[in-house]
């Protein structure tokens, strides 16, 4: 559309000169960010998009849907408007991200054909003349095109439409060449004869790690994330990513992290090339370890955190939060975070196990502030021998306005067998505004 026509259609239109070079540079920065954060395989898709291979990387973010919404939210927080889609093939994801109105789309495995059948043929990444020609023939949607016989189509438009269709439906492989920049430190090893035995792979992984750490040492860097790319003889690739909590260039630690997962490598007909890339490197200074004869040395646990974290365990430490509401008084922090130094200030007894969902109990109790005399929990009736309370906890209206008047009265109750529970009543026992006056078990004491 010419600029004059656009100005005629919209009043006060702001015109900005296009800057393709700057756009491309910004897109590359975004691609490198996604490469560090999300997946080992990220590439620039056209002039306006990124393609990310999420296979084997989505579970780290909690699944495809969470990965996608998290990505969209993070981009929005930086002032970027993004639309994203996950599908079985690059072609389908490319089309769905650009042509659907919703911000995020997840196509379940095997449902490509239903998702793309009604899309217009511009979704197929074809040259403009081909699309024009197909429109002349009366072909408007992907579904119509895929129903046409291939031979006349190829005769008239060349092999391109059929190839693009096959790529969209995932019938033809379309490898993604991940983005690389000159700053990334990369070491590679080509094999004259394809290798496949785990011991051989481990041997060459160690050699590559040795070379990489020499290169890192030259530049004074330590690696935070490194990828091992395995090229197989049948022109397919596999990626292994190792993440570290702190920058590291110790060859023994890095090779342990990579060799730990050798059993997940499928050598197929053999491996012809292995590449080790330091995707994310940070400056690493040598530190002098002072040895003191008096103080006992507390070992640094970050190697263990790296090993367990790369195996898919969720590691965390907990830190206190200034909140009286029990479920809000704890937050998780990174296992290698600096020491907090303080613990919970509360002196009242707290249960060892806290239920995520408080469980309803049937109670006989004197209102307003007497502990229960008898309660029935999980179908068993328990007579209360001793009790302590109430400990009144008020709602936090500054977090949620609905909690303005909410009150919980907590009691420690002990049944005749000596089992101790933390029960509470929602509400203060008099005013129905403060809660439902139902009783719950919230935790078990030791």
């Amino acid at each position, binding site marked *: 559309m010419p600029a004059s026509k656009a100005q005629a259609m919209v009043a006060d239109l702001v015109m900005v000169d296009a800057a393709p070079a700057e756009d491309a540079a910004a897109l590359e920065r975004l691609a490198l960010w996604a490469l560090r954060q999300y997946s080992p395989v990220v590439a620039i898709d056209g002039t306006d998009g990124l393609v990310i291979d999420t296979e084997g990387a989505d579970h780290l973010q909690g699944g495809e849907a969470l990965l996608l919404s998290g990505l969209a939210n993070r981009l929005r927080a930086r002032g970027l408007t993004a639309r994203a889609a996950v599908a079985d093939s690059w072609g389908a994801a490319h089309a769905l991200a650009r042509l659907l109105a919703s911000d995020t789309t997840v196509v379940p495995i095997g449902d490509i054909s239903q998702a793309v059948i009604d899309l217009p043929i511009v979704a197929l990444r074809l040259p403009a003349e081909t699309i024009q020609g197909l429109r002349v023939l009366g072909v408007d949607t992907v579904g119509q095109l895929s129903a046409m016989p291939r031979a006349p189509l190829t005769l008239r438009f060349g092999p391109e439409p059929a190839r693009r269709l096959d790529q969209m439906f995932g019938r033809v492989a379309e490898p993604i060449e991940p983005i690389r920049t000159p700053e990334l430190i990369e070491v590679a090893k080509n094999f004259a004869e394809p290798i496949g035995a785990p011991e051989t792979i481990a041997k060459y992984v160690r050699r590559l790690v040795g070379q990489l750490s020499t290169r890192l040492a030259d530049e004074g860097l330590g690696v935070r994330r490194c990828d091992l790319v395995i090229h197989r003889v049948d022109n397919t690739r596999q990626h292994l990513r190792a993440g570290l909590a702190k920058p590291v260039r110790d060859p023994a630690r890095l090779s342990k992290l990579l060799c730990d997962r050798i059993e997940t490598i499928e050598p197929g007909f053999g491996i012809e090339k292995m590449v080790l890339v330091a995707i994310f490197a940070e400056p690493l200074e040598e530190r002098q370890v002072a040895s003191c004869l008096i103080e006992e040395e507390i070992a640094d646990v970050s190697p263990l955190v790296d090993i*367990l974290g790369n*195996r898919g365990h969720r590691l965390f430490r907990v830190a206190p939060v200034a909140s009286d509401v029990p479920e809000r008084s*704890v937050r998780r922090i990174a296992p290698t975070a600096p020491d907090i130094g303080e613990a*919970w200030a509360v002196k009242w007894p707290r249960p060892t196990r806290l239920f995520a969902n408080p469980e309803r109990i049937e109670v006989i109790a004197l209102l307003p502030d007497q502990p229960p005399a008898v309660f029935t929990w999980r179908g068993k009736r328990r007579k209360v021998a001793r009790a302590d309370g109430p400990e009144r906890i008020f709602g936090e209206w500054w977090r949620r306005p609905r909690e303005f008047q909410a009150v919980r009265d907590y009691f420690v109750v002990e049944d005749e067998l000596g*089992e101790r529970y933390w029960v509470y009543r929602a509400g203060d026992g008099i005013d129905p505004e403060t809660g439902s006056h139902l009783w719950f078990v919230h935790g078990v004491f*030791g």
Partner: protein
Amino acid sequence: MSKPAHNPVLAELRERIGQLEGKAARAKAVLPFAVPEMDRALPGGGLAFGALHEIAGGGGGTIDGAAAALFVAGIAARTRGKVLWCMTRPDLFFPAISQAGLHPDRVIWCESDKEEQVLSAMEEGLSFGGLAAVVGELVRLPMNASRRLQLAAEKTGAMAIVLRRWRRQNEASDYGQPTASTTRWRISTLPSERLPVAGVGRARWLAEIMRVKAGECAEFEIGAPDAKGRVCLLPTSTGRADQAAGWRSLAG
């Protein structure tokens, strides 16, 4: 062994066996409870470092393992260094753990999806060295797994503690199965200490040593760990005497 043998032949034999077992080289470190009666029941005078200990709850505690978890927290609090705590069900309430003296900065929590992953995380933590104790909450502990944990613990001298926690109370009969653990405990709750006023006093537990290598079974009534993780021995409660009297009257 705490007591020197009187017979020199026996002593020599013991030494040779010890050499075969590979334990003679390392002086065995233990973590005493600072309760003489309990320490006397354990060889070496306390819970051994570099060994596997199994702890479970009794009664309702077989499912929630609340008392057992607090007992473990008290043991871990008295060690020095970091603690790795592996689990699949993250329902521990950390303020209670910190009330038993285990500072939150000292514990790294490791949440896994499967039981086998808990075992592998424990083994990795034990063979890492530099941790004081590694705790794992497990439903099943097969012989082979326990042997691996015991060997990993022996290598580095970290204390391995398995907190057994079943899904259903009747599954707890599994606790009789043999494992390679050095000691096996059961912690059951008892009515709390009586106060002169209405209220709940210090929690009382029945701690049973069900099995200990080179030692005899024993049971104690103890008070729950205080703010430094120390337990104390309590005189046998009147409540239990009443119960026994009740049984006697039923029998008679």
